[in-house]
């Protein structure tokens, strides 16, 4: 059933592409109905799959001579991420309700991107996964380059080149794995049983992991992320941070770690303190956490703050993956979900609710605008989103980051100590942005107030309220009752650890 999320999204994209150009309202409603249908299927598939292991929906020979199958399946990890994609898609359409320029093309690219993302999460054939992964690159480019803002062409090209370079690394690893396995199959399960030599895994793992981690925003390959997020139109930044970065992390997990588990073994020697690829990537993840947070603290552009915070939060995902234990990796998957929701919400508030009304994202300018009074909804929504982003208990981020840190503690307490610094800085930059953007204490002279009264900011519309409620509710719901996702994630991670990691 979940397979229909893919078909529906691509069908919707094609329909929107051939829709008459003069009817933006029709395009919006069509896109919304496709996204909602996708979310409904995702929820139904999630509910139906509860307590089940890996289920295969479709298994058709695609290129028989090379053993490539059109193999769609889902396990707990996939179901959670498909759910995330459904939520992000609906929220993305809602927050793009005011797109007037080439509306139908916008939503066509949007749904094509969503379809590719669903496809990656549901593919259990390595080549198919790669195909969907690349399908997602091109719409991103056009979404940013056509509908973006600040230096959009530069940012779009940078993102496309980074993504394509990453996928080239993955492709090299894929070809090498295919040639080495000799099994003439690209199914993830069969490749997992191929028993690659350790020496092969030792170089193929870092190659593939880095290739995917570029899209997950791993330091020092993260620089596409802030510029891309800032330049992208709101919905695209929501998707970029919400689901596209998860594609990278998911690839690291599903392909990198599951296929080449011995690549994480100790090298047998130590090089300036690094004894294995695991140490290397864990340290890069920790550096990303701290670096992203520190840079976010110094930004003057509201959206850059959120952009760098994504780098920091994705560091937790990668750190969780490198723990290689049950609790840490469960936390990593939960953090993917959690960050997808929270980052989507933050970008929606900054890009759509605030920027489209004030036409500035400079914190210094926002400080003088008294937004807490003029846009109380935005202010309180950002308070909630900010709390979620800081990882306060009661929100999904808390559960996820806690699990990652517990898992990391078991491996190396120093990683936790360093990541803790990142959390503290995270509180600081969120607080700073919140305070400067909404609760600026610029004196409110009667003259200014009168002037502001004359330029009333446009009222908050229903799509915005719905979107905020949807995302904030999801984060709060998972935060208050994390078992709803954990029960699905834990068995899948356990199976993956048992099958893939030694």
């Amino acid at each position, binding site marked *: 059933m979940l397979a229909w999320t893919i078909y529906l999204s691509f069908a919707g994209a094609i329909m929107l592409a051939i829709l008459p150009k003069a009817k933006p309202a029709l395009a919006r409603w069509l896109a919304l109905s496709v996204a909602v249908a996708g979310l409904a299927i995702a929820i139904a598939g999630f509910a139906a799959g509860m307590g089940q292991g890996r289920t295969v929906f479709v298994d058709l020979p695609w290129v028989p001579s090379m053993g490539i199958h059109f193999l769609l399946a889902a396990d707990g990890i996939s179901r959670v991420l498909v759910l995330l994609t459904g939520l992000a898609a609906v929220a993305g359409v809602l927050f793009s309700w005011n797109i007037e320029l080439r509306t139908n093309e916008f939503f066509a690219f949007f749904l094509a991107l969503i379809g590719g993302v669903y496809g990656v999460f549901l593919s259990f054939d390595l080549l198919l996964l790669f195909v969907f992964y690349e399908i997602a690159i091109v719409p991103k480019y056009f979404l940013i380059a056509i509908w973006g803002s600040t230096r959009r062409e530069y940012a779009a090209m940078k993102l496309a080149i980074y993504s394509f370079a990453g996928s080239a690394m993955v492709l*090299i690893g894929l070809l090498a794995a295919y040639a080495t396995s000799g099994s003439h199959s690209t199914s993830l399960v069969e490749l997992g049983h191929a028993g690659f030599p350790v020496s092969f895994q030792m170089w193929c793992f870092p190659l593939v992991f880095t290739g995917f981690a570029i899209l997950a925003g791993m330091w020092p390959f993260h620089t596409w992320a802030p510029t891309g997020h800032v330049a992208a139109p709101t919905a695209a930044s929501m998707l970029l941070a919400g689901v596209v970065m998860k594609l990278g992390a998911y690839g690291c997990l599903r392909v990198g770690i599951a296929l080449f588990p011995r690549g994480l073994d100790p090298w047998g020697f130590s090089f300036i303190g690094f004894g294995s690829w695991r140490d290397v990537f864990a340290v890069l993840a920790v550096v990303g956490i701290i670096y992203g947070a520190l840079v976010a603290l110094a930004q003057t552009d509201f959206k850059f703050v959120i952009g760098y915070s994504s780098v920091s939060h994705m560091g937790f995902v990668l750190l969780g993956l490198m723990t290689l234990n049950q609790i840490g990796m469960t936390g990593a998957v939960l953090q993917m979900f959690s960050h997808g929701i929270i980052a989507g919400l933050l970008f929606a508030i900054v890009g759509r609710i605030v920027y489209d009304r004030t036409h500035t994202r400079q914190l210094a300018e926002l400080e003088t605008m008294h937004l807490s009074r003029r846009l109380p909804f935005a202010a309180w929504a950002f308070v909630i989103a900010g709390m979620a982003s800081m990882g306060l208990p009661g929100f999904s981020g808390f559960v996820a980051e806690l699990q990652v840190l517990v898992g990391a503690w078991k491996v190396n307490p120093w990683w936790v100590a360093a990541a803790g610094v990142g959390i503290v800085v995270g509180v600081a930059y969120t607080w700073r942005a919140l305070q400067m953007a909404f609760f600026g204490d610029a004196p409110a002279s009667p003259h200014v107030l009168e002037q502001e009264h004359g330029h009333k900011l446009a009222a908050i519309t229903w799509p915005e309220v719905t979107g905020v409620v949807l995302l904030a509710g999801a984060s709060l719901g998972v935060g208050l009752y994390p078992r709803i996702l954990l029960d699905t994630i834990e068995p899948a991670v356990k199976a993956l650890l048992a099958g893939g990691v030694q």
Partner: protein
Amino acid sequence: MNYADLFRVTLPETALEIAALVVLVVDLGFLRKTALKARVAVAALLGVAGCGAAIWALQFQGDAGLSYGTIGESTLLATGGFAQIAQSGILVLTALTLLLLIDSDFTRHVGEYVSVVLMAAVGGLLISAAQDLLVIFIGLELLSLGLYILTAFAKSSGKSAEAAMKYYLFGGMSAAFLLFGFSYLYGITGSTNLNQIFSALAVGEGDSFPLLIVAVVLVFAGLGFKVAAVPFHLWAPDTYEGAPAPAAAFIASVSKVASFTLLLSIGFASEHILISGAGFWTRFGAGLGSIRFELLWNVILFAAAALSMVVGNLAALAQVSVRRLLAYSAIAHAGYLLLGITNNHGEVIAHLPFSRPSPTTDAVLFYILTYGLTTIGAFGVVSVVERATGSDRLDSFLGLHKRNSLLAAVLLVLFLSLAGIPPLVGFYAKFNLFAAVLGVSAGPVPFTLVALAVAFSAVSLYYYLQVLKRAYVMPAVDESPIKAHPATMAVLVAIAAAVVVLGCFPALLQNWIESFYR
């Protein structure tokens, strides 16, 4: 050999020649007074009909080929197998380039144009099947001379004349190299037949190794020119830029298919000697010559492949003319393809029946056929834009999606396919080729080259996006709609649809290729 065999095997060529003459007679004899548009349509359709007849005639060729003595030892023209696949491909692609002619007005001599195209295609058919140095040379000359004329066909354009002159000078020089190399090969081995040459080499002409080096290098200089491999590529950008668009499409597709098939048959002959018939014992016996040849040939091809990928992709980054961009991208694609030519090893082929070449051969054919298709479409789009804006510069693509959204969509599909983005056929062709190369031999050298190829594919996305960016992203300076002839549009849309369908279902084309080996 008897004349019945000759007639049977060359039936497709004969069909094309007859069609060429019919076109001339009809155009010059009956349509002198008719309007140019009607003449173009009639000539193009007659040419297409000729290609159709030749495709139909392919089935009567039989399996034995044309030989003057024992089959295999003295074959002149092969039939069936990959030769026939390539011939079918050449005929289909020729028909497509002729259909693109319908909308063009660069010449009033349409009858001559179409018949030269058909005769050049005959050359292509010949070299795809040729197993003898003399036939190869004649076929190549027939093809090349046709191409020089076609390049110069826009008589009112200085660029066209310049391009043809450059192409001709380079081409004449490389033909001389090739012939010189052939003469050495003949001198070393005493035969002009590919199989006999390699048998003789296998028996061990160790003393003549220095001479063999010279011969092989000279031969590759001649063939490398045809496929535009670095360092014999300099003609390509000028020719692609100056030639009339349908001629450029023909050069970029049909001529490439034919030349790569020729490279395939040389590699094929060199390997089969190691395992089949007379050659089998030599593998353990005296014969170092053949292994030496293979080593030498592979080293040259590897070097040319690596250089072509690097130079083609990097030079394409700096182009402002879309035709030159396509030329450099063609050089890069030739680099990828040469990887597939190199990696043939007797060990793998030993398991396969004689008529069955190594897996890389299929992959190369898949690649070159789909690449030819895509590039014809690309030149079709460029020529429509060029006629509307008067230039093929990047900036003339500005706002194309507003001026003709269907054309822009076709451009999107074709260029993304060239860049190797799934689910378009260019991606699968690349994947298939690289997987086959690694599947045959996963040594460090092929692996490094495949890694290089994949890395440079990532680079290539940049320049393809430069064109697409102008078509979709950047604001238009001129928003007047671009009109294309309905027939041209139909061909272009059909090509784009084929690129999508074959990308989603590559097994269709693969099964078709497989069906020739049964």
